[in-house]
């Protein structure tokens, strides 16, 4: 087990280095950070001096090695835009994104699982058809349109919920949380729904497909024949077996939710990592962009590692193969 984890961790470092390398090679084409950092009247000599100070004249490989070397030592550098330490900026924004992703995931499960079960058990019902069609429409509309629609209906027309920002947050140590104030929840609701819509449809369809599969299996048919009450059959025997693959996939999707919250964060001016990344692109803030991509890669790697470890824990055959 320890060997397996170690092997995976070594692999993970390589994955993150590869991401950093790719990101860095792309940064050569995003534009010139110096013209974004200085005013129109700054002379070329001053621009050139700044470029030299920031090491932008160094060969690409040298810049990359310096960046990864600093990262490995825990030195994330300073933002070109705000001059703040990048580590602080990311750390400030991580809670917002994680909470948003987490609540979006909960919403998608709370709605997606019951509707998935319902549509599997009543495949020909009228309500099933309505649910399937509406959710299909939900995924086909781009996220930003859904967000703007929600803002317009619940923020502008009805005035029930705030249209931007995070509302009041409660500071717990270095973690600024929206989850403990009413204001925070009000601000969280619309972006979380927006981000959760796609996830919701996916969850629902997965649950539905798995459930229908399970319902066709021999042991369910057999239990049915033995006269096990339908309620017990559906919610104890069938649902439990449905959820195992579903949870795996949902877990993996969580990394995606974090990474792709960019659009939602932009529409709601949600002060998370995605918004920070967008602002950084606009200003060619290379240090922040680099660290962001590596952090996101780290999330993916971490989630995958946890999922793999869960497999190993569940399935003894994997352990035997690993040792041999």
């Amino acid at each position, binding site marked *: 087990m320890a060997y397996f984890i170690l092997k995976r961790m070594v692999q993970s470092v390589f994955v993150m280095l590869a991401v950093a390398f790719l990101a860095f090679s792309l940064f050569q084409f995003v534009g010139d950070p110096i013209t974004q950092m200085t005013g129109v009247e700054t002379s070329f000599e001053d621009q050139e001096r700044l470029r030299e100070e920031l090491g932008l004249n160094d060969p690409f490989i040298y810049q990359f090695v310096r960046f990864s070397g600093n990262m490995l030592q825990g030195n994330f550098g300073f933002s070109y835009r705000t001059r703040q*330490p990048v580590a602080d900026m990311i750390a400030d924004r991580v809670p917002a994104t994680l909470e948003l992703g987490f609540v979006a995931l909960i919403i998608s499960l709370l709605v997606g699982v019951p509707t998935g079960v319902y549509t599997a058990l009543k495949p020909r019902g009228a309500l099933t058809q309505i649910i399937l069609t509406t959710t299909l429409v939900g995924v086909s509309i781009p996220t930003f349109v859904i967000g703007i629609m929600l803002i317009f209906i619940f923020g502008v027309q009805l005035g029930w919920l705030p249209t931007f920002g995070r509302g009041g947050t409660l500071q717990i140590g270095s973690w600024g949380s929206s989850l403990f104030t009413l204001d925070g929840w009000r601000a969280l609701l619309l972006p979380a729904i927006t981000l959760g819509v796609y996830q919701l449809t996916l969850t629902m369809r997965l649950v539905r497909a798995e459930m229908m599969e399970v319902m066709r299996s021999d042991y369910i048919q057999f239990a049915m024949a033995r006269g096990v009450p339908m309620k017990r059959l559906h919610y104890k025997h069938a649902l439990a077996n449905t959820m195992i693959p579903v949870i795996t996939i949902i877990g993996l999707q969580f990394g995606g939710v974090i990474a792709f919250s960019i659009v939602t964060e932009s529409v709601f*001016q949600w002060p998370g990592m995605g918004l920070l990344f967008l602002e950084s692109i606009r200003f060619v803030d290379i240090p922040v962009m680099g660290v962001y991509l590596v952090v996101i890669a780290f999330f993916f790697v971490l989630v995958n590692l946890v999922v793999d470890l869960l497999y190993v824990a569940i399935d003894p055959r994997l352990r035997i193969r690993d040792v041999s």
Partner: protein
Amino acid sequence: MKTLKLAFIIGAISLTALSASAETFRWASKTDPQTMDPHAVNSAPVLSFLNNIYEGLVRRNKGMSIEGSLAQSWAPLNGENGWRFNLRQGVTFQNGSTFNSEDVLFSYERASSEVADVRSWFAPVKEVRAVDDYTIDFITNAPNPLFPDSIANFMILDKDWAEANGAELPARDAENFATMNVNGTGPFTLASRDPGIKTVLVSNSNWWGKVEHNITSAVFTPIGNSATGLAALLSGEIDFIQPIPLQDVGQVESRDGFKVLEGEETRVIMFGFGHEHEKLLYSSDVTGANPFQDVRVRQAAAHAIDIASIDRVLFRGKIDGASQLVPAGISGYSETNSSRPAYDPERSKALLSEAGYPNGFSFGLKCPNDRYINDEALCRAAASMFAAVGLKAELNTVPVREYWPQLRKDAFDMYLLGWSPGTFDIEHPIRFLMSTPNSEKKLGSWNFGGYSNQRVDELLPDIQQEIDPVARQTMVDEVVGITQAEVAYIPLYTQPLIWAAKENVNLTQRADNFFMLRWVTVD
């Protein structure tokens, strides 16, 4: 007992009265100021924001002209080139320390240091002398009538405060104390700063000036997405936003309780040519030559543009055509050269034939797509107008972060540019856009096409030094006349300024797009 109760009631009433007049004002804009350090970045979002906190020797009033701020008066020096500023007495910084000439001298040294981004303002300055506590002399290399105008955004910070906190110099690639903290003399001071999320200012009760606003605290939120910003205004979460997109004007106006504020920025939008290029880079039919080097071809391009249609279709009637690189009202604006080339496609075609291109030719037109209002749409419209006379523009639009590097690399045949004169004087575009590029003398640094005219170069130093306004205007008129005759650029129009606010908010829209909290009242 009774009196005590009465006193309590009166106290409670006066307390409510007080809180009714105490206003929290919330506003939003697209870009967060990058820093709170007034000398670190010479960009409009930073200078506009910090003008509420810090003050300079002089400041601009609602009509953009110069008035005293920390200096009560100023005059040219006798027997020497330069200016003497008499400072205001009894002014204190927000931390309570006294303002005097030592702070001005310190701020000058800080702002003109190598790491300061605003040092170009002090290029003509040879020496600065504090004569006494409330008198300071700026000695210039040559007579410089424009100097007071050019330092309207030169903000003064407290010497002792900066030294005590290790902020003697602006931070360029790391933060220092002044990046996140302030100590100015201005009408507002910083209560909290959360970069990119929220910045809170509070009224400075010890401010020396006459208070015209009724705001106790002001909350600024950057909102990058225009639709989100508009929704925040319409839902009542913010009181004011700058700017809003043109297409949203109707939506704001149609709602009760909101208003749109329209004005003109001092920014002129224009097309530039690759004067210096020996051949076209993006042409499919002209090789080895650059037709734009022929003035007739440039004239043809100028006559092909129909500003009235652009105004009607793209700008909902909110723009004015421009004849020169500054709009009317800017000092030095040339009244004698105020007419722009008429829209005349027939004449364009004739001029092209005369120049040897009866069927026109193709060329590359480069434009930004996120820098000016409707920039991409404008270039599309212009390309079709050019095509109507035979000038087949291959349009290539890029985000601004790639745009400037590409222009610097000469990757264009024709390009779009907007220019707002930082000094509000025509000398500014002459220096940056019309002078022959010369990095040593810091001339023509935004003259991407390398336009060059000996007479213009000759006149610039005289324009910079001439004290007599009539003599100076004669020289300016000559320069504008030359550049118009040679079609150095095609000035198109003055960019509109469109802000939106709640009905009960009164504010002043200044032509430099700066937003001053001290002129805001909330009814």
